[in-house]
C-alpha cells in the first residue's frame, strides 16, 4: 500500500548527531497521525522532512525518499510542494505574511496562481469551515491565540493540500481555545478526508482524536502503531493513561468516558485528605491592583496575597491579564491604582537593582534574559550583578538542573535547562517572592515533573511563588492555591481541590474520571497502595 505520503528509510543527521534513522511511515487518506516523543527528539524534524523545510532551512544530511502518491518529492523545495502539503508552525503569528484574515487566507492561492473566482469562493468556504467569518477584516495581530491558530490552519487549507502538517498547534493555547482548534482539526479529517500529521507533547487532549501515534524514540527510530499499543509503554503519556497503567486496566482508556466506565472496577479508595491550609506569613500583599493599557483594562482591582512557602497558580484565558498582573506585582508594569507591598516596600518605587532583591520574575520568553555566549559567563554576570559571591548562580543552577556543561551556549540548552538557567540568574539576587510567567511552555511531561520539583523546593525554602500557566495538570501538581482570572478580574480563588475541580475546563483528567477531590495520579497510586496493603 502506498498511502498519500510515504517516508522510505528516512535518515537525518547533523555532523555526528543522528536525529532520525530508518524511518518508514505511511500516511493514509483521511488519517490523523500524532507524532509524539520527548522534547528535542526530532518531532519537528520528522514534520520538516515532509514539508521540505528539512534540510533546506536547518542544514544537515537527509537520506531516504519521500513519496507523495507514489512520486518522489524529496528533491522538491517547500514552495513546489505548497499545493500538496500545508504546514502550520508553532507560532502562527511568526508565519503570517498579510495584514488581515482575508488576505492571509488568499496568500497561498495567489502564489499558486489560482483563478480569482476560485480564490473568492474558497476564501468564503474556508471562513465558514473554520468558523472565523466574523473575523475576516480583522488585523491578524489583534486576534487571540486560538483565533490566530485557526486562521493559520485556514490559510493553508485554501490551497486544498492533500496533507496538513501541524507543529504543536495547541501548546500556547488555554484549555478552551485548544479544544476549539482540535475540534476544527478533527472536523477536517472527518469531513474533508484530509490527512493530518500533528506533533504534540501535551497528549491529554489529542490522544482521543488520533488514529495512530508515531512515537519518536531518543535513538532516532520511530514506532508507529495504534494509540493503545504505543501508549502502553510510551515514555510520554497523559495522566489518563498513567491512571490506566496503574490500575492495570485493559484495554487502556484513551478518553475520559472510557476511563470512567472502567473506574467502577476500582476498589473503594480513601480520598486524599483536604490539605489543612497552614497559617503562612504573607510576603507580598497586593490590594486593588488595576492595570490599564490605553483604553483596555487589563487588570481590574485585584487583591492577592502571596505567602512564604506557598505556591499560587494563576490561570485564565489567553489575554485575561495574567502577564499584566505579574509585571505589575514585580513593579516594572505600570499600575493605575492599588498598592503592592513586599517587606514594607512598594517594588514600583524601587530602583531596578533593589526590585530584583524583592521580587524575582522569569518572563514568558526566558531567552530574553540571556545575552552571553556560555553558561559560565551568564552565571558570572549574574553573580556580579547581584553582588553575590562567585559561584552563587552556578550553585543554584546545579541544584535546579545538575550537570549542565559550563561551556555550552545558552541557545543550545534544552527548553527546560534554559528555564533553569534563567531561574538561577533571577534567584541569585535572593528575592523572597518569585513570579514565573508561563514556565511550562515547551516542556514535556518529564520536564514538567522536574519543574514541579524545583518549584516545590523553592517554596519549601520559604519563598512565595506565583506562576501563571495554562497547563491544568501541572497546576494540579504544584498549586497550594489557584487564582483564576477572567477579563482582568479574579473569578475564583482557593485551594486547587476546590477551584480546579469546580471548573469544567480547568479540571484535570483524574478529577474528570474519579470526581473530586482526586487531582493527580500520584494520589490514586498512594490510595491503591494503601488498599492493596
Amino acid at each position: 500500500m502506498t498511502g498519500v505520503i510515504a517516508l522510505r528509510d528516512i535518515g537525518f543527521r547533523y555532523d555526528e548527531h543522528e536525529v532520525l534513522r530508518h524511518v518508514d511511515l505511511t500516511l493514509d487518506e483521511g488519517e490523523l497521525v500524532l507524532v509524539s516523543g520527548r522534547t528535542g527528539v526530532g518531532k519537528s524534524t520528522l514534520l520538516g522532512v515532509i514539508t521540505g523545510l528539512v534540510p533546506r532551512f536547518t542544514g544537515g544530511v537527509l537520506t531516504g525518499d519521500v513519496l507523495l502518491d507514489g512520486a518522489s518529492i524529496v528533491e522538491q523545495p517547500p514552495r513546489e510542494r505548497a499545493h500538496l502539503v500545508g504546514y502550520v508552525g508553532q507560532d502562527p503569528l511568526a508565519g503570517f505574511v498579510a495584514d488581515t484574515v482575508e488576505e492571509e487566507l488568499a496568500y497561498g492561492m495567489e502564489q499558486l496562481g489560482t483563478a480569482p473566482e476560485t480564490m473568492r469562493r474558497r476564501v468564503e468556504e474556508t471562513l465558514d469551515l473554520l468558523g472565523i467569518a466574523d473575523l475576516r477584516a480583522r488585523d491578524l495581530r489583534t486576534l487571540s491565540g486560538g483565533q490566530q491558530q485557526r486562521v493559520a490552519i485556514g490559510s493553508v487549507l485554501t490551497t486544498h493540500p492533500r496533507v496538513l502538517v501541524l507543529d504543536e498547534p495547541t501548546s500556547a493555547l488555554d484549555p478552551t481555545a485548544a479544544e476549539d482548534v482540535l475540534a476544527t482539526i478533527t472536523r477536517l479529517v472527518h469531513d474533508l478526508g484530509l490527512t493530518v500529521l500533528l506533533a504534540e507533547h501535551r497528549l491529554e487532549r489529542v490522544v482521543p482524536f488520533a488514529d495512530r501515534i508515531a512515537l519518536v524514540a531518543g535513538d532516532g527510530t520511530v514506532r508507529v502503531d495504534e494509540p493503545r499499543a504505543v501508549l502502553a509503554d510510551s515514555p510520554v503519556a497523559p495522566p489518563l493513561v498513567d491512571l490506566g497503567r496503574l490500575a492495570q486496566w485493559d484495554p487502556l482508556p484513551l478518553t475520559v468516558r472510557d476511563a470512567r466506565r472502567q473506574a467502577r472496577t476500582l476498589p473503594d479508595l480513601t480520598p486524599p485528605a483536604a490539605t489543612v491550609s497552614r497559617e503562612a506569613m504573607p510576603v507580598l500583599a497586593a490590594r486593588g491592583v488595576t492595570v490599564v493599557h490605553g483604553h483596555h483594562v487589563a487588570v481590574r482591582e485585584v487583591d492577592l496575597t502571596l505567602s512564604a512557602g506557598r505556591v499560587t497558580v494563576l490561570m485564565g484565558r489567553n489575554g485575561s491579564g495574567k502577564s499584566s498582573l505579574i509585571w505589575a506585582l514585580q513593579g516594572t508594569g505600570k499600575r493605575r491604582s492599588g498598592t503592592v507591598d513586599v517587606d514594607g516596600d512598594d517594588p514600583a518605587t524601587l530602583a531596578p537593582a533593589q526590585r530584583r532583591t524583592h521580587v524575582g520574575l522569569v518572563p514568558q520568553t526566558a531567552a530574553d534574559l540571556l545575552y552571553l555566549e556560555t553558561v559560565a559567563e551568564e552565571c558570572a554576570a549574574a553573580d556580579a550583578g547581584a553582588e553575590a559571591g562567585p559561584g552563587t548562580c552556578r550553585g543554584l543552577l546545579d541544584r535546579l538542573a545538575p550537570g549542565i556543561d559550563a561551556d555550552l551556549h545558552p541557545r543550545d540548552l534544552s527548553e527546560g535547562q534554559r528555564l533553569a538557567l534563567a531561574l538561577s540568574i533571577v534567584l541569585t539576587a535572593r528575592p523572597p517572592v518569585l513570579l514565573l510567567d508561563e514556565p511550562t511552555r515547551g516542556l514535556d511531561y518529564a520536564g514538567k515533573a522536574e519543574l514541579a520539583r524545583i518549584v516545590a523546593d523553592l517554596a519549601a525554602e520559604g519563598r512565595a511563588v506565583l506562576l501563571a500557566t495554562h497547563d491544568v495538570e501541572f497546576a494540579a501538581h504544584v498549586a497550594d492555591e489557584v487564582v483564576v482570572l477572567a477579563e482582568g478580574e479574579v473569578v475564583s480563588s482557593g485551594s486547587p481541590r476546590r477551584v480546579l475541580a469546580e471548573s469544567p475546563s480547568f479540571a484535570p483528567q483524574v478529577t474528570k474520571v474519579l470526581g473530586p477531590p482526586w487531582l493527580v495520579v500520584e494520589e490514586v497510586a498512594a490510595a491503591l497502595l494503601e488498599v492493596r496493603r
Partner: protein
Amino acid sequence: MWGLPRDLHPIAWWSWAIGLATAASLTTNPLLLLLIMGSATVVVMARRSGHPFGRSFRLYVLLALVTVVMRVVFRLVFGGQEIGHVLLDLPEIPLPDWAAGVRLLGPVTSEALLAGLYDGLRLATIILCVGAANSLANPKRLLASVPPALYEIGTALVVAVTIFPQLADSARRVRAAQALRGGATSGVGRLRRFLVPVLEDALERSLALAAGMDTRGYGRSGGASPRERWLTGSLLLAALTGICVGTYALLDPTAPRILAGPMLGAGAVVAVLGLVSAGRRVQRSRYRPDPWRTPELVTVGVGVVVAVLGWYLGHTQVPVAYPGVDAMPYLSPLALVVGLLGTAPAVATPVPATAFVGREVTA
C-alpha cells in the same frame, strides 16, 4: 453618491496627493498653501479607512508643524537680510574668518520672518500631502499593486514594513526582561545586553517567516526556461544602464545631447519590455484586486488638474503665486480653484470599506 463602500485604489490616492504636492511646491502664497493643506485634511477626515495607517495622519500634522517652526527659527538664528523692517534688534555674534558668509543672530526683520514662514509652509504642505496619501491608502496595498515582475521586491518591502512594529515590540520585551537580572550596566556591555536578544529574536522571526512563506509557495519558479530568464535579465540590465546614462546626460549640460533625451527614452522602453517579459513567466494571481473605476479616474484627474493649474498660475500670475514679503498676499479666482479643487475626492469617492476607528482596542 458613488455607490457602495469600498477602498479606493491606492494609486489613485497617491496620484491625487502628488498632484496637490506639486501645486504646493510651485507657490509660496501662504493663503493658497493653507487652502491646499485644508483640502488634504478635509479629504483625510472624510475618507480615511480603518487600517492601522489611517491613524498616522496626526503624526504628519505634527511633523508639518515642526517644519514650519524650524524654518522660522533657522531664519532667526542665521539672520540673513539686513534690509527691511527690524522687529527685534539682536546683537550679531562675531564669527571667525573661516565662517565667512554665515551669520549668527543679528537684527530680525519682518521680511526674513515672513520669508521663512512662507518657505516652511510650502514644505509643510508637501509633507501633509504625503501624510494624507499614507493615511488614505494602505502603503502595503500600494506595494501589492506593483507589476508582477516586481512582485518579489514588493513583498520584501511589505515584510520590511511589518518588521518594524515587531522589532519595537521585541525591544520593549527585552528591555523589561534585562531589568530583571544583574549584569553589565554601562558601555558596550549594556548595549550588548539589549542588542543580542533583540537581534536573535529578529533572526528567529525572520527564519520563521521565511519558512512560512516558502511552505506556502512564495517564489515558485513557474515555467520559465533558462533562455527566458536570461532574456529578461539582460533586458532589465540594459534598461538600467540606459536610464542611468540618460539621467546623467540630462543633468550634465556638457554631455552630448544625443545621450540625454533619446537615451533616457530608450532606457524606459527597454525597461517596460523587460518588465513585461518578466511578468509573463510569473504564474500568480491577485485576490480581490482593487478595481479601477470612475471615482479613481476622478481622483487622479483632480490631482492632475490641480498640478497643471498650479503650474499655469506660477507662470501667468507671478504676484499671486510668489507674493512679496512686503505686501499682503492675495488670491485670484484661479488660485482659489487650485486651492479648493483638491477637496473634490471627499465627496467624489466611495466611503471606505472599513470605517476609521479613532483608538485601538487591543484584545
